[in-house]
């Protein structure tokens, strides 16, 4: 005890105490947050589902129907779409839909994390469907980016572009850019096939394969080794910049050099 008492008034004591306190808070927060995300992924109670049903009736039922079986020509039945579909559609702000058009537009999420998990619990209770993936299933650190590259370019690149920059589909529909999409939402999209996207079930692309694709997409965050990437649109953007910037600058300098002309 004496040893501790002696160091109590040491110069560094306040700093050490503050650091210890910070470590304690961070530890608790981390424990709580992993616990809660684990909850969201696995354990949902009947209470959540009941709350979710209320939210659904207030916000979704006008199109999807009070029993969530859908309305012909307006909105599909949600029986059996699973929690993953709800987490994706509501979590990316596509639902509730802003306006009818070629496809639902991603926007700021309209519900809190808790409300989304309640809605998901309700829809999951209607019929068996794909669940929200766990944090480990979508961790890009655990994926193989090279395998992801091969999977991505055979399965995804024809719509989303070679590195997920997005691309056009028919009649005003489009495959969105994937760089800002969270790993969980990417995984859920593959699992549930929202809008024009096909479903990639676990027989098409294994859960490990899906994680590899996420790893490949997250590798794009590092940017391009060649400099600014001009939207990774490809030769069209390069051609436009070649004409406007390179040739533009050079022609401007010819005018400058030839200024003393007729």
């Amino acid at each position, binding site marked *: 005890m004496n040893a501790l008492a002696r160091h109590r008034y040491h110069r560094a004591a306040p700093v050490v105490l503050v650091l210890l306190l910070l470590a304690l808070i961070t530890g608790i927060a981390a424990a709580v947050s992993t616990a809660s995300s684990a909850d969201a992924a696995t354990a949902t109670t009947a209470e959540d589902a009941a709350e979710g049903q209320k939210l659904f009736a207030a916000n979704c039922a006008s199109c999807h129907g009070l029993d969530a079986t859908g309305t012909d020509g307006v909105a599909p039945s949600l029986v059996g779409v699973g929690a993953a579909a709800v987490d994706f559609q509501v979590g990316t702000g596509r639902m509730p839909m802003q306006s009818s058009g*070629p496809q639902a537009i991603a926007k700021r999420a309209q519900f809190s994390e808790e409300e989304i998990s309640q809605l998901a619990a309700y829809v999951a209770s209607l019929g068996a469907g794909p669940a929200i993936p766990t944090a480990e299933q979508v961790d890009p650190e655990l994926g*193989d*980016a*090279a395998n*992801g*590259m*091969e999977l991505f*370019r*055979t399965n995804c*690149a*024809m*719509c*989303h*572009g*070679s*590195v997920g*920059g*997005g*691309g*056009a589909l*028919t*009649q*005003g529909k*489009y*495959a969105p850019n994937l760089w800002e999409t969270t790993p969980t939402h990417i995984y859920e999209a593959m699992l549930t096939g929202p809008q024009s996207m096909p479903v990639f079930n676990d027989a098409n692309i294994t859960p490990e394969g899906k994680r590899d694709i996420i790893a490949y997409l997250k*590798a794009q965050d590092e940017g*391009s*080794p*060649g*400099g*600014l*990437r*001009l939207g*990774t*649109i*490809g*030769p*069209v*953007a*390069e*051609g*436009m*910049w*070649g*004409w406007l*910037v*390179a*040739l533009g*600058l*050079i*022609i401007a*300098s*010819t*005018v400058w*050099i*030839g*200024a*003393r*002309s*007729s």
Partner: protein
Amino acid sequence: MGARVNTAAAGTANWVDERTSIGGFVKFFARKLFPDHWSFMLGEIALYSFVVLLLSGVFLTAFFVPSMTIVEYDGPLATMQGVEMSEAFASTLHMSFEVPGGLLMRQIHHWSALLFTAAIVTHMARVFFTGAFRKPRELNWLVGFTLMILSLAAGFSGYSLPDDVLSGNGLRIIEGVTRSIPIVGEYISYWIFGGEFPGEILIPRLFTMHVLLVPGLILVLVALHLFLVFLHKHTQYPGGGRKDTNVVGLPLFPVYTAKAGGFFFVVFGIIALVAAIFTINPVWNYGPYDPSPVSAGTQPDWYILFVDGALRLMPGWLFDIIPMEWEFWGYTLSLNILIPALILPGLFFGFLALYPWIEAWATGDRGEKHVLDRPRNAPVRTGIGVALISFYVILVMEGSNDIIANLFHLSLNDLTYFFRIGIFVIPALAFWITRRLAIGLQRKDRELVLHGKETGRIVRHEHGEYQEVHEPLTDQERWILVSYDDIAPLEIEPEYNDRGVRRKGYRWDHFKQRLSRIYFEKRISPVTPEELAEAQHAHH
């Protein structure tokens, strides 16, 4: 010090001259006169970007392996680790990520290729719109035209070398286009690829074409092009004292040698700047070639984009009734590929190559033209040029239709329908509007010459009349506005002579007459000295 340097220089020059008699050449070149205008430097941009292409290309050949042998990647790039690829692709990754400065050199090479083709097209447009292709320069127009085609070949063969998914898809289209040629298409395709696509010898063949054959031809034709420029003397814009029989300008040495030498470094510097800032052709995104994947946003470099656009524009069925693909005795005739990818570019380029002759038939003028036209003084030619450009731009935009649809939230299908109609309507409109604008500008010029510039000064005369003071043009200004050819439509001899016998060659003459009427039926004549005198008399 200065005197010693001068003596040394003179001594060296003398030594060389006594052994080569080069003094005469140097004097000839140094004192050759060139007129001055910024637009005369557009061809120089093409030449200098070609020099940059040669310099950076030599660097790249030191590391590129033109082989389709399959290897497993083992390098610093995580997304390619353990992936099977051709040696061509692996060596492209190696030079990009492991050779110091390699990626910068690749980007310099590719950006200068885009600039090379863009500068050629711009230079060609300048020559077209100013009428610099007229006698005696028709041959040099053809040499330049061939250089433009060769630049496309150089660009496309180089674009295909890294053996990535993007360029492989381009080659696949080339294979399809080759096969659409009736009867012999399949044989030609087998001959090019050494069997079925993609085969194993294409990359080495393209490499030889890209580093030896095409640049060799370009070098020879560049030399011929420049030789003919020296031989014909450079054209000049209209101005006081400038005639078809003289050249008003400065000698090559010292002003132009300094300007041109400095300009090379400007071009090189801007290319290096752009290459250092902007990624180009990120093959590590596309991955090694494999015939199955095609990603969204798959397009060729800009100079081939018009062919892609024509292919995208072409319907498979005309009005949903007439099929564009026919089968005869087991042979398929793919008009939906043959027409957009071969016949259309053939007609487009054929028209461009023959244009100097088409215009010569219309004017019937056999004289040499060394003074350039201002574009407004050739309204039909200018209209045709703008129509051709609009036609080309529509094809390029259709080739980028998915990018445009995605960026501007439009429907891909609607865009294609719009361009299908636009390809016929827009060039016609562009021709008509441009010609009207040119004629309007000519009318404005006449007005200026006859009545001078409006000064905005209102004067009241003694008898109470108000008048705006017009300031007459200077002689130099007037020269530019009145010195252009006034060509009347061609008059030809009648079809039958007085004995009622049909004249030989009448149909050809009739064709030339109709052409001439298209060009010169509606024309604004320059102000004559008599008209000017009369106008001045009326003013005073």
